[in-house]
């Protein structure tokens, strides 16, 4: 129990700069809208109401946060092992495609077994994509940043192709798939909202990844590699193998995010199934301080921004792009608050205040 409270305290402490960054970004955004003759207070209130105002807004916030948890976890996990996985976007798309393949081919299989096989295949599809990146990096020296960006483009084109021929709806009208059969869908969690069981899955996923990273020998080795690959090699750890494992896990988790989005929200595959969840995931991971449990509140905040921005558009006619502006600024502020310069300044300021009060 004591260890658990310690973990919580450490996590809260490490999330402090993130919280400060979020508040700062919101304030700057409010200032920004005031130049366009909107009341900043009204704008912030609308965002707040739109994100947390009632049960429905809250459910929408959670709904938007769900895919971001997956991509955020994927990026955070890889980063802990010292790898920049920019490919969560492509892995997300591949996961969405895999579940569609299963979901549109009706089956009489026993539902739980069907689900298990389906999700294992989804995970594997993303894992394979990740392993390609790992193999290219370790055997051919290709930077993972380059290969993941390239694989994102490939995944996107593959999706487009799939929706124009093999996976396209029987009616052949739009570039979209048929609806998934009911057994492949995620059940509604709260009547009257769009909230689905995927929310629970991603929370469990976050907890599992936390256990893997901080409680299992495998995760320990991944963190050692992320912090000091040379020491890892000298300690007899097979660095290449672990890099491939990390990318496989990372890709698998991102793919599950794509599957959940199709099974829980859209019900069928579209070309724009991901409005850049993979890239936003990088921001979520950073805001969550690359900690699996920190990713949860970070994704929640970004989800709130998304649903708040919708309210902004509905009620005040302000473009939802504002949400993206805030997201961008959050990252800038996190980076700023991370600098030694800022910390030293803060310390000086705090001691100054302290002496002053005495």
């Amino acid at each position: 129990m004591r260890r658990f409270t310690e973990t919580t305290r450490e996590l809260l402490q490490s999330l402090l700069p993130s919280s400060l960054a979020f508040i700062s970004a919101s304030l700057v955004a409010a200032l920004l809208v005031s130049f366009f003759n909107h009341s900043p207070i009204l704008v912030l209130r609308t965002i707040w109401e739109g994100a947390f105002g009632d049960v429905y807004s809250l459910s929408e916030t959670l709904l938007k946060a769900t895919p971001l948890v997956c991509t955020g976890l994927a990026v955070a996990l890889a980063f802990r092992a010292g790898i920049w996985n920019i490919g969560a976007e492509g892995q997300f798309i591949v996961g969405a495609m895999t579940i569609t393949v299963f979901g549109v081919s009706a089956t009489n299989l026993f539902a739980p077994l069907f689900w298990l096989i389906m999700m294992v295949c989804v995970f594997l599809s993303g894992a394979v994509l990740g392993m390609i990146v790992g193999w290219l990096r370790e055997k051919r020296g290709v930077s993972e940043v380059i290969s993941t960006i390239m694989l994102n483009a490939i995944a996107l084109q593959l999706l487009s192709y799939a929706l124009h021929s093999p996976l396209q709806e029987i009616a052949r009208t739009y570039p979209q798939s048929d609806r998934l059969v009911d057994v492949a869908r995620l059940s509604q969690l709260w009547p009257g909202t769009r909230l689905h069981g995927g929310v629970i899955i991603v929370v469990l996923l976050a907890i599992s990844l936390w256990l893997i990273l901080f409680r299992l020998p495998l995760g320990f080795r991944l963190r050692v590699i992320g912090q000091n690959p040379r020491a890892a090699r000298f300690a007899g750890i097979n660095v290449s193998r672990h890099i491939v494992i990390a990318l496989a896990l990372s890709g698998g988790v991102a793919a599950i995010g794509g599957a959940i989005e199709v099974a829980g929200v859209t019900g069928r595959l579209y070309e724009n199934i991901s409005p850049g969840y993979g890239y936003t995931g990088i921001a979520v991971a950073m805001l969550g301080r690359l900690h699996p449990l920190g990713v949860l509140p970070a994704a929640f905040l970004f989800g709130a921004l998304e649903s708040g921005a919708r309210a902004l558009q509905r009620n005040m006619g302000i473009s939802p792009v504002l949400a993206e502006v805030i997201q961008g600024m959050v990252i800038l502020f996190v980076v700023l608050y991370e600098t030694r310069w800022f910390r030293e300044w803060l310390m000086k300021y705090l001691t100054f205040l302290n002496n002053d009060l005495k």
Partner: protein
Amino acid sequence: MSSIISHIRLQGIKKHFGSIQALGGVDLMLQAGEVHALLGENGAGKSTLMKILYGLYRPDAGTIHFDNHPVKIGSAAVAMQLGLGFVQQHFSLIDNLTIAENIILGTQAQFFYSPTALHRQIQTFINSNGFTLDAGTPVSELSVGEKQRVEIIKALYRQAKFIILDEPTSVLAPQEVETLFATIRRLQAEGKGIVFITHKLDEVLQISDRITILRAGKNVVTLDAGFATAENLADMMIGEIISPAQSSDRKMTGAPSVLLKASNLKIHNDRLHLAVNDISFELAAGEILGVAGVDGSGQRELAEAIMGLRTVQAGMIQKKKTLFDRRRLGFIPPDRLSEAFVPDFSVAENFLLERSDDHEFRRAGFLAAAKINGHAKTVIENFSVVCKGPKQKLRELSGGNQQKFLLGRALSTNPEVLVAMNPTWGVDVAATAAIHARLRNMQKRGGAILLFSTDLEEIYALCDRFFVMHTGRLMGWAIAATSATQVGLWMTGRPGATIH
């Protein structure tokens, strides 16, 4: 004033790093038109002294005079203005820029420049200084020797009157050394002062006019090259070594069993040059076998190959079967913070580093934190590591305590063989004594230690026998009775009579 300096005088320079004294009051006199060799073992303080002169470190005490004017050199920029140039071992060139661009870097305030005009101008400068390099070549296409020449031209372009060369030959092939020496002689003829940092005796005798020998942060002597011989230089560089008494009363019980055998090893370094060239030895139970030599003689590559971290080009390493288990074959890497530890992890996590596979530290597949902490604590207590406990970050421990913990970690599995590289590097006297006692203890229990050390005193104090490496070759075998002069000659690349 830079155009008129004829001499630089450093007096009573002192410098501490933490509890380690790097320089304890060093005097040095540099003259224009003179090649001054600065000779000493690793850690003698040569580089530190020059970094102080060049404004990279601040001295704790002491004065620097340029032609009897006292100067304060607070930064490299000031040093350059005063007419100093410093060619460090690691070049500060930008690969993607051309030679000319590298040379003017930091000297021109212009926002735009014409590459053709620049290249023409710098080409003239290069030629007028007697070099043959094409100013338009990107630095990435140059050989190591050529890069070094660019560094020297860079210093000349900044109107350096005194140029410091930090171990300039250590990166060069033999024929490149000749070119460098020709360059040095030309610069000398032009009235430049040259400081030549090295630990190679032959080079010192070949090129220098005056020689200053540093040992353990003090200057032993400054003498004219005419008075120097390889023997007296080696003697003064290494100093008196008192062979410890206990080396004689070590008991050898029965025929010792060989645990590790290397035969005719050839090993490449990272640049694919031969770093270990035809080395053979046997390591038996109950002995401490030393490997002496100046830093970079191939010790790292040899140790890594033994640990299975580097492939062998030719020859063979035979190990006793049990030694393929890392717990039976302990390792102390040379650079603790970058190779042995994850500095931002806790002491306990660093304890786990080599043993994350060990089932002893698992419970139902999960890491057994209590057990890991307990073991880490045992090491902390047994090796009197000063720290707040297993949860403190390793980075926060002092160097000596990190090193004690490193040794404790390696010995915690009770290994049969320990490969230790500079186990007391950067460690104070008390911790050194504690570490030496532990190593002797391991030997008494029948363990074998392969001790790589650049500190000859340590080798003499601990080893039954040792061999000396120089540029990857085994120069000779020595025992406690072998004279330090002989060993010093081997270390600096001079073969002598084998006494063994």
